[in-house]
């Protein structure tokens, strides 16, 4: 048992396009991309708002959002479990142990990341452009829109940071998804399962596949971003 065996297994899994593996990879991408999309819809405008406005209590709110970046996934999982459980307030939705529950948990986990990081990125941008915004007489809503558009390339990196956290976490999806075969099993819960079966080579091989997946998504975003930047400056 060792790294050599794991690399061999990883390669074999990918080359054979193992059906179970494709299903698990597909669900991992579906859940984490959906969570990233929702987290960006909420977090980026919130980050822009925090960057562009000054109000009493803003400092405290910034500290809170930054602190929430450190939310342990297992705590998020527990809170979402207690909410979605049949005994919980949202139990009537019947969402526990479904991919939807996993999307909710990951969204809760990474929304603070997208909000806090986009605030950081956009505040610099805002300080730079503030005189121009003022001279155009932009409303707050227009300022936020302008910031999000001007900062889009940096915000792509923010989205990737959120996606990276989502696709890598296991604590939250394990609790609210239940790691059910062919329903809620994703890459990280499959790795945890194989580890607990003592099949360490297969667990490591799945880890290598997960890393390759993250590399592919990052490369795709990098490529899109480079293309868009060339187009913007052409």
């Amino acid at each position, binding site marked *: 048992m060792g790294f050599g065996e794991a690399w061999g297994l990883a390669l074999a899994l990918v080359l054979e396009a193992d059906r179970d593996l494709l299903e698990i990879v597909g669900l991992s991408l579906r859940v984490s991309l959906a969570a990233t999309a929702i987290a960006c819809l909420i977090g980026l405008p919130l980050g822009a708002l925090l960057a562009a406005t000054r109000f009493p209590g803003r400092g405290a709110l910034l500290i809170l959002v930054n602190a929430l970046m450190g939310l342990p996934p297992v705590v998020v999982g527990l809170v979402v479990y207690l909410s979605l459980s049949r*005994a919980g307030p949202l139990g009537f939705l019947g969402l526990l142990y479904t991919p939807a529950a996993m999307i909710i948990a990951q969204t809760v986990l990474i929304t603070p990341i997208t909000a806090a990081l986009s605030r950081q990125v956009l505040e610099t941008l805002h300080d730079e452009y503030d005189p121009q915004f003022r001279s155009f007489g932009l409303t707050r809503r227009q300022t936020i829109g302008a910031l999000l558009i001007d900062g889009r390339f940096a915000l792509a990196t923010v989205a990737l940071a959120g996606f990276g956290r989502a696709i890598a976490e296991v604590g939250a999806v394990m609790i609210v998804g239940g790691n059910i075969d062919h329903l809620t099993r994703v890459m990280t819960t499959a790795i945890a399962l194989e580890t*607990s079966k003592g099949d360490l080579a297969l667990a490591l091989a799945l880890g290598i596949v997960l890393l390759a997946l993250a590399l592919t998504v990052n490369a795709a975003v990098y490529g899109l971003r480079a293309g868009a930047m060339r187009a913007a400056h052409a």
Partner: protein
Amino acid sequence: MKTCFAALLCAVAATVASADIIVQSTTSTANSGLYDHLLPQFEAEAGYKVNVVAVGTGQAIRNATNCDADVLLVHAKASEEAFVAEGRGVSRADLMYNDFVIVGPAADPAGIAGSEDTEAALRAIAEAGALFASRGDDSGTHKKELQLWSAAGTDPSAASGAWYRETGSGMGATLNAAIGMGAYALTDRATWLSFGNKGDYKVVVEGDPDLFNQYGVILVNPEQCPSVKVDEAQGFIDWLLSDAGQSAIAAHQIGGKQLFFPNAN
């Protein structure tokens, strides 16, 4: 945006068919591949899916108490009977059994290899101060282990963190930890036979009647939990207890060894 979010959730949630049931189960049955063996046979006949959530017995019972299950399949008879007595479950049936074993390193620091006397073996471990890895997670195996310590007249909790190591995690994770630090551990035989990271470990204590491990199956009470799909859940339980289900359980083997022995009445 809220409607967009709700639509997305519904679209994803819609992938779960309405007749599918949820079984809260122990890790030993899932990790040893029992469900991979049983469920395709049952699902082909029944036409609906059985979704298994594999956690420790304690957590499985808590999840079922929250109505997040249709069927409970665990191995801690006293807790199961309490679950039914509280009205949380309709009734409990014996399903199958196997046995627990104590596994340990080849060096055998407590000198217990080959023993059939669990109480003496545990006392020897405590006296030698040899490392022992406990589940420490309120699972069926953990409950069993605590009973065995108590029967041996030894309280290991005083040595927690010293030679008694409570991992607070599942059977597989505890075995990985035990093997990593050279500790003895109590495990069910099915998990051990199917475990892939045994190192130089072997079974050191087995064959004691005290190590008997009974699994039971319970229908979650629909009066407490209206979400329970009674017909489908009862259909699955009936199949498990039928001749077809019982022989399917007996037919599950790893390396030529039978993992579970059906004993429904």
